[in-house]
């Protein structure tokens, strides 16, 4: 039981690290496409890690099954939403950032 809690804690801390890195990338990166890259990847992985940690902390019950469904749902839908937004930005004419341009 003690070991399982330690593994759950490790998962929760790794997930928190990825979410903080994604938020910093959302503010610091110079372009819309790079921001979409930071947001989409880091948020999906961080959320999955944190929810898996909570599943390990909870044990086998109905709440764990619901959390597993939430993990699967978010792993499918979060990259889809970000891809739709990037597609919209490309069709509206947002130009990618090149080295030497100023930040937008």
């Amino acid at each position, binding site marked *: 039981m003690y070991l399982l*809690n330690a593994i759950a*804690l490790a998962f*929760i801390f790794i997930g*928190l690290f990825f*979410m*903080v890195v*994604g*938020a*910093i990338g*959302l*503010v610091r990166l110079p372009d*819309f496409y790079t*921001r*979409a890259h930071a*947001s989409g990847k880091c*948020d*999906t992985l961080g*959320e999955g890690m*944190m*929810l898996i940690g*909570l599943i390990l*902390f*909870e044990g086998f019950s*109905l*709440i764990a099954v*619901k*959390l597993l*469904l*939430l993990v699967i*749902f*978010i792993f499918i*839908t*979060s990259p*889809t*939403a*970000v891809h*739709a*937004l990037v*597609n*919209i*930005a490309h*069709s*509206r004419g*947002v130009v990618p950032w090149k080295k030497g341009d100023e930040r*937008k």
Partner: protein
Amino acid sequence: MVDIFHASVIILILTIFICLYRVVGGPGVENRLIAVNTVGTKTIILLVLIGFIYERPIFVDIAIIYAMINFIATLAIAKYLRRGCIC
């Protein structure tokens, strides 16, 4: 373990404030939309953690419904921006 959940909630709220900078000041509508999507993703985790702290399992169901509404709202706004109407 509950103390660690409290610390995680505080760190997540600070992260949401970092993302709100991009919501308020981001150039164009796309940057704001992607920041709002990120805030919604963090809110799901926040709801689940609140359910674990106060030992109310109903918050997990609320988190599932929030995830669905977040996804559909993002897709609807994307469709509106491309076509000019939701149709």
